[in-house]
Structure formats: structure tokens, C-alpha cells
């Protein structure tokens, strides 16, 4: 199972959903981590949600990220019921309602949340 999402270069966030117990989750795996049912449904997220945590990274992990500092990372609770980590526009704050865009950063596509 390889979900086509931003991690494979597709400009979308994908939520997995269990047809058995109704569980929804984000980190892809071919089974429901609550009830074990196989073949979860893939739901393309509308990309809307609310910011629950933010940080501004000044110390980059590597040369490829160094030119991009400072950059903002956030945790966002998507309307579909899962939490995702992503980049965000500078100045994004906890409680903000945001929408996902997708941008090339450090040589790969990443989700970037901006004010909705």
C-alpha cells in the first residue's frame, strides 16, 4: 500500500478511514490500528483545520534546510479528524483556522498552511 500524498509528490493530504469501526488516522498503514481491519479507505482531505501548536525553527537539521530558516512548523487538527504536522506561513498562531497549500521546500513537496 502506497498512498499518493505529499510524501510521494502529490499535492494532497490523505486521511485513512476504517470501514469497520469508523476510526480515522493519518500515518499510512494497510490496516486499522484500532480493530485490525484491512484495506482502509483513502480520503483526500479538504486541507482545512485549526492550528493546535506552532514552532519557528532557527536551528536547521541539515545543509538543505539551512537556507530556509527561520521556518514555521505547526500541528493542525484537520476537519476530517486527524492531526498533521506541516509547514505554515510566518506568524501562524494557535487557534488560527487554516487551509493547506503545497510548496517545494528543500527539494521536496511539503504542505504549507496559510490563513483560511
Amino acid at each position, binding site marked *: 500500500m502506497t498512498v499518493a500524498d505529499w510524501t510521494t509528490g502529490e499535492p494532497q493530504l490523505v486521511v485513512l478511514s476504517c470501514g469497520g469501526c469508523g476510526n480515522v488516522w493519518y500515518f499510512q498503514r494497510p490496516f486499522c490500528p484500532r480493530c485490525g481491519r484491512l484495506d482502509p479507505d483513502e480520503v483526500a482531505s479538504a486541507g482545512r483545520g485549526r492550528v493546535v501548536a506552532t514552532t519557528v525553527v532557527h536551528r536547521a537539521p*541539515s545543509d538543505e534546510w539551512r537556507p530556509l530558516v*527561520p521556518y514555521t*512548523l505547526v500541528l493542525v487538527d484537520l476537519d476530517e479528524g486527524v492531526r498533521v504536522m506541516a509547514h505554515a506561513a510566518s506568524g501562524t498562531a494557535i487557534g488560527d483556522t487554516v487551509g493547506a497549500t503545497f510548496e517545494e521546500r528543500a527539494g521536496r513537496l511539503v504542505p504549507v498552511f496559510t490563513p483560511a
Partner: protein
Amino acid sequence: MSYIAGSFATAFGRHEGQDTLGLMTQAATGALADAGLERADIDGIICGYSTTMPHLMLATVFAEHFGIRPRYAAALQLGGATGLAMAATAHFVIQSKAASRLLIVAGENRLSGQTRDSAIQALAQVGHPRYEVPLGTTVPAYYGLIASAYLDGRGAGEADLAELAVAMRSHAVDSPGAHYREPITVEDVLVSRAVAEPLKLLDCCPVSDGGAAMVVTGDQVNDHCLRVLGSGQAHQHQHVSVVPDLLSYGAGPSSRMALDEAGIGLDRIRYAAVYDSFTVTLALLLEEIGLAPPGQAGALARDGHFSPGGAVPLNTHGGLLSYGHCGVAGAMSHMAELQRQLTGRAGARQIPGQPDVALLHGDGGVMSSHTSMVVALP
């Protein structure tokens, strides 16, 4: 019944030319001497891991190198919670009679054995390899996210977190083995350079070289043993993206389990050894355990509550924030200090009115793995 019979932490800092096995050897030698035991007395060994010496079998590699032939060996990996989890495992092993006198040892040249980028990248791998790490994350960034939720959710300020860094540094002043010993002020913390906002450099523990070890036994082998009264654990998530509640991570149930096994309440605790990789780590853990009211950890530190003369002295050697952090051995230095304080051997740092019951708490990953222990004079 099991006892912490001996413990030892090397000085933490930059130890150019030292490697993992060398630091583990120094630590093990110190802990055996502290326990008054010889290599031949040891029949069990538990090791952690080292990022500068990844190996499939570190416990037996070290046993052979150091010169012991145990009938029980294991290596454990729970990030920063490993040291205390190893002590808890030794407690279980002794109760099961699989071994009776165990050496627990860790060491790592985490600072001098690799470039700073390598250390930062190795540690960032506690994040999710597909959904977190590719975003350019670091461990301070994971904790920066957590810190923002803490400050927002508890109505605390960055100056409150800074108080915890100041308190740990004030303890390190009298701690010769500490990585950093110069006193700092809240202002120093606030103006130190941003690492992952809201965390600044002085909100973060340093990366250090060092080692630490302890000896856990089923019998009282000397006059400065501590009895293990109870232990507990909780493991609710690995990755910060899936934390169910950004103000509650598992330290509560873990510490309650340890206190319940000990049969005592939190009000009986006279010394605390709590994991402090970042100021926010310490604030969250103290508050979730119940050693500080929600949002008040920094205020209590400012009022001297956690100082050697306070109600619940905390990490009196300087903690990870100032004694330093070299991986698994990092939080084991908390145990070495605690044992000295409870047995009246802490020298210049000795707490007046020698405490008799202590709570330890370790955290690994991104507030992911929690281990607690209650120890007391026998």
C-alpha cells in the same frame, strides 16, 4: 526486594578521545566501587544504546570488554527513559531470581564522537520518517511545538520556563562534574538565541560526552543502599503528531503506578529526580505528576520550592539542563545524585535534613515513553 547499591556518573562535557566503551567502563568501575563489589559479584547486565556506537548486542559486547560473564543480559531502548527503565527491569529480574546483582551501564561520546549536524539528525529520527522528519524537523522543534501548546494551554510565559533553567544552573554551580556551571538569570535565558521558538538555547540541555552506571542487588551489600519501593511505566504514543492531549502524556499514570506499588502518596516525596531535556519537559512532567499545580512549575522554581533548601529538592546536581545530556547515561546521573543525597554523601550539595523518600521520572522520545520509580532508605 531490590536495592540501588551503587551508582556513579562521570563528569559530563567534552571528553575528546573517549569512546562509548571507554565511558561505559569508567562509569561501571565507579558504580562497582561505590557498591563495594567486584566484577565477579555481578551476575546480570543491562545496557542501553549509543548513537555513536550502534551495535546489535551492546550488552554482551560490553560484558566481554569489561570482563564479566553474566547469567542475564539485555539491552533496552526507550530513549531518555532507558536508564530508569533499566533500573526497573533489574528490579523485576531480581524478583524473578534470574539474577541477583546487576550492573546497569551507559555511556556515549555524543558530543565529540560526531558532528553537531549528525547528532541533531540522529536524534530527529525519533520523528516519523515519512510524515515528520522530511519537514526539516529536529528534537527541539518537536518540543517547541509542545512548548507552544503548554504556554497557550496553561497560561504560562516564556519567563516561567526560564525559571527552570535558572534553577538547574544554580544547582550545577556546586556540581564539579557538570557541563555548565556559570550562574544564569531569567534574562540570560530569554535573550539566548532562538532554537525552535518558543525554546531558546538555554531552554535546551546541552549535548555532552559522559557515562553513568548503577548496581542493583537483591541484598543490602553496603550501608548506603536505597530500597526500590515501586515502579511504573506508560507508553501512549511515539510521534508528537498523534499525541491525544498536548497537556497530558503519561507521566501521571506512570508515577501513580509507582507510588501505588510503594503504598505512599505524593506528599511523602522529599526529593525528586525528573527528566529535564528542555525546560518545557520539566514543567509538563512536574505538573502531570502533581509536584506542581498546572502552569505553576516555573513559579515554584522561582520561589525556591525545588532548591536544596526547598520543600521538594529537584535534580540537585544540575539536571540534564546543566549537568548535561549524553543519551542513556544522561538521566542516570539523576539517580547517582539522588543516591548521594538520600544517603548523606552529597558533600557541598547535601540537602539539610537528609531526604528519605524520592520519586524518579524519565521520559523518552517526544514525551513518548514514561518510567517512574520510588526509592527510599531501607
